[in-house]
C-alpha cells in the first residue's frame, strides 16, 4: 500500500529550509545569545531526519552522499584537535581565544577559536543522530 503523503512532502520542501537556516543561525548566535554547537547540531540533525522520514533513503542519499559516521568522526577530530591545538601556542590544554575583526562587507565581527570546538560538537551531534536513526530504520 502506498501512503499518500503529498501534503507532508510539500510542506517539508518549504519547511526544511527554515529548519536548516535556523540550525545554522542557532549555531552562530550561540556565543552571546541562545544557541550554540549542541543545539545547532540537534536542529540540523533533526532537519535531516525529517528529510529521511519524508523521502526515502535513496533519494536523500543521492543528494547528500555523506557517510554520517565520518561526519561524526570529523566532529570529534575538530573538538579534540582544537583542544590540542592550544599546545602549539604554549597555552594550557583547551585554552580558547577570541578577537574582533572588521570585515569589508560584514562589518566588525567577533571571532573565536571556540567556534571550531563548537563546530566539532555540532558535527558530532549531527553525525551520531543520523547514524543511529538510519541504522535502526535500515534494520531488517
Amino acid at each position, binding site marked *: 500500500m502506498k501512503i499518500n503523503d503529498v501534503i507532508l512532502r510539500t510542506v517539508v520542501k518549504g519547511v526544511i529550509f527554515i529548519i536548516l537556516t535556523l540550525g545554522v543561525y*542557532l549555531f552562530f548566535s*550561540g*556565543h*552571546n*545569545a*541562545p*544557541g*550554540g*554547537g*549542541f*543545539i545547532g547540531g*540537534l*536542529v540540523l*540533525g*533533526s532537519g535531516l*531526519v*525529517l528529510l529521511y*522520514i519524508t523521502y526515502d533513503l535513496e533519494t536523500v542519499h543521492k543528494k547528500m552522499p555523506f557517510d554520517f*559516521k565520518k561526519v*561524526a*568522526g570529523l*566532529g*570529534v577530530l575538530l*573538538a*579534540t584537535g582544537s*583542544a590540542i591545538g592550544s*599546545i*602549539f601556542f*604554549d*597555552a*594550557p*590544554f*583547551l585554552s*580558547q*581565544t*577570541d578577537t574582533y575583526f572588521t570585515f569589508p562587507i560584514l562589518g566588525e565581527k*567577533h571571532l*573565536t577559536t*571556540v567556534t571550531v*570546538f*563548537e563546530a*566539532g*560538537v555540532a558535527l*558530532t*551531534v549531527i*553525525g*551520531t*543522530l543520523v*547514524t*543511529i*536513526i538510519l*541504522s*535502526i*530504520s*535500515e*534494520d531488517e
Partner: protein
Amino acid sequence: MTIDIAIILTPFIMAALIPIFYRRLRKNMIGWVVLIIPVSLFLLLTTYIPRVAKGEVYSHTYEWIPSFNLNFTTYIDGLSLIFSLLITGVGSLVILYSIFYLSVKESLHHFYCYLLLFMGAMLGVVFSDNLMVLYAFWELTSVSSFLLIAFWHHRKASRAGARKSMTITVSGGVAMLVGFLMLYAMSGTFSIREIINNIDVISGHVLFIPALLLVLFGAFTKSAQFPFHIWLPDAMEAPTPVSSYLHSATMVKAGIYLVARFTPIFGGEMVWFWTITGVGLITLFWGSFNAVRQVDLKAILAYSTVSQLGLIMSLLGLGSVAVYLGYSTETVMYTQATFAALFHLINHSTFKGALFMMVGIVDHEIGTRDIRRLGGLMAILPFTFTIAIIGCFSMAGLPPFNGFLSKEMFFTAVLNITELNIFSIHNIGLLIPIVAWVASVFTFVYCLIIVSKTFLGSMKPDIVEKNPHEAPFGMLLPPFILIGLVITIFFFPNLLGEYILKPAMLSVYPTFPSAEEMTPHISAWHRINTELLMTLGVVVLGIILYRFLKYWSKIYRLFPKQWTLNAIYEKVITSSENISESITKRYMSGHLTHYFVYIYVSFVAIVAGTFIALDAFEWNPTNDAVIENYELILVFVMIFAAVAILFAKSRITTVLLNGVLGYSVAFFFVIFRAPDLALTQLVVESVTTALYLICFKFLAELKPERSTKRVKISNGLISVFVGATVTLIGLTVVNYDKFKSISSYFEDSYNLAGGKNIVNTILGDFRAFDTMLEVVVLFIAGLGVFALIKLKAKKGDVDIEN
C-alpha cells in the same frame, strides 16, 4: 612547544598519519618512511649527550590541567637520556630489521602504527616528571605491547599471550597508580623532582612504606620479576622484531627505570633494599635455571631476559644502600652496584637485541625454532653464527665482550655487600654472592645450548632438503651493528662510562656531591682476584654441567605440574571468571524492570542518604516567587499525563503522553527564561518521538503486567521515594550553602570566557573538558549502535565470536 615535547609527540603524530597515507605507498615502502622517525630522534638525542655529560638538565613544563596539578613536564637528565637513546637506537635497528623480516602480505600499517605508538609511549615514560603523565604513558606501553603480541591475532596462543601480559602488567600499573596517589597525598605534588627535594617531609609518613611497595609492584610486573615473570615467555608469540624491541631491550626495562628513578625517594629504606635485592636475585636464579630446560630458542631467550632483568634489578637494590649510608668516601664504593646496573642495562640491550634478531633469522630461513630439530647451521648461516656466538659469549660473561665487564662488576658488587653490617645483611652472609654465582653458571649453560644445539653438530635431513640460505643483508645489518657495539664497548668502556653513565649516576644519587667519584674506571684486566676466579669457576662448572646435561636434567621433573606459577595463574583467572559470572548472573535477569529497581534504589539510597546523613534538607519558602495560575495548569497537565501513562493500553498512547510530559517541561523552561534549555528540550523531544516511530515495528504489543501484589507495592513505594527525593532536593538546592556558589564565574562570563551566553561559556569554556569527552562518548555510542545493528550475525550465519 619545545623540542622535548616534540620528541615525545613525533612518534604519535606519525602513528596517526600512517592510516592516512599508507595506501598511496608501495607496501615495502611503509617501513622505510617510518624508519625516518626513530633515526632522526636518535640523532637529535645524541646531540644532548655532551651537554648532559656536563651535568646540564633540560626541563620544560607545559601546563595541561593546572587546576589539578597535572602538568606535562619533560625532564631530560642522564638517566632518561640512557633510556631514550636505547628506545630510539634499538627502535631504528628493529624497524630496519622488520622491513626485511615481515612479509608484505602482513598488515604492515598496523604493525608500524603500534610500534610507533609504543615508541612514543616509552619516550613519554622516561621523559615525564609528572607522576600522572608518567602513569598514562606507562599504561600506554602495556596497551601497545598487547596489540603487538596479538599482531597475529588469528592464533590462539598470540591472543592468550597478549591477554596474560596485559592482565599482569596492567594490574601492576594500577597498583603503582595507587602508590603515586599516596605519594601525592604525602607530598602534595606530582612532580618527581619536587618529591625528591621534600624527601624529609614524607619519609616518616605512615603511607611511605605502602607507597613504596605499590610502586615496586608496578615495577616488578613490568620488568617480569619473579613471580610475575610468567607473562614474558608467553609474550614471545609476538613477531620476533617485537620481542627483540619491547620484550628485551625497552619495555621490560621500564620497571628498572622506575626503580632507578625512585631510588632517591625510597632508597634509604630497608624494605626497599631487601625487596629489590631479594626479588632480583630470585628472578636471576629462577630465570637462568628455567632457561636451560626450554627447547624453543625464543623461550630460552625469554627466560634469559627474565634472569638478566633480575640481575640488573638486584644491582639496583644493592646500590640503594649508598642512599641509606649517605655520602662519605667509604660509602661511594656501594654506588658501583648502580653503575654496574646501568652499564649492564646497555650491554644487555646490545647482545640480547642481537640474539633475538639471530633467532628471527633462524626462524625465517629454516622455519623452526625448536632446538631438537635444529643443528649444524654453521655451514649455511655463517654470519648468523657469528652473531650468535658473540651475543652468547657476551651474555655468558666472557671476554672480549661487554658482558664480561658488567658481569665482573656484578660480582664485585655482591662481594662488597657481604662486608656491610646494616639491614642484618650479615645473617645471610655469603648467600648473595653464592646465588649470583650459581645463576651465572646456569647462564653459561644455556648460552652453550643456544650456540651448540643450533649451529654445531649435524644438520637434520629435513633441513637439508629445504636448501636454506643466509638471510638478506638488511636482516643481518641490525644485529651486526649491535654486536659491533658489544665489542666496541669492551675495548672503550670508559667512553660510555664518562659520557652516558656518569650523568645518570647523578640522577640516581642527587645528594652525592660529585659524579666523578661514582664513576669507576672500567678495565678488563685487574689482576687475579676473586671476581676473575668466580668467572673461571663459572666456565669450568658450566662446561661440566653442559656435558652431563642429560643426567641431571631429571631434576626439572621434580616440580609438580599443578603447582607451576602458570597453573596457579590459570586457576586464579578461571575461578575469578567463574565467580564473577555467577554473581553477575544473579542480578542480570534480563528484565528491564529489575534494572530500573537497581538504579532507583541506589539513587535514593545514595542521594537521599547523603542528604539525610548531612542533615541538609532545608526548605525555606519565604524567598520564593509567587506561583502563577498558568504554572499550576502546566503542573496539572503534567500530572495528568504522567498518571495516564500508567493506564495506557497501546504503545502509541504512551509515546504521545510521554511527549506531552517532555513538551510541558520545555514550556517550563520558557516560563523560567531558559531559552537554551527550552530549545534543546523541544528538539530532543521531537527526535525522540521520531526514534520511537522508527522503532515501532520492532516493539512487541503492550501486555498487562502479571506480578504479585508484593512486587507491585514495592515498585510503587520505590517510585514514590524517587519522586520525593527529586522534589525535596529541588526544593533544597535553592537554599543550599554547604559549597561556595560558582555563579560568580557565570556572571562574569564575558570577561572570563569572552561570551555573553553563560550556557555556552559553561559548555565551551568553563567545563569544556566535560563537553569534549561527552562528544567523544556520543561518537562512541553512535558507533556502538551502528555496530550492534549492522554487524550482527545474519540468520543462519555462524557465530564468529570467540
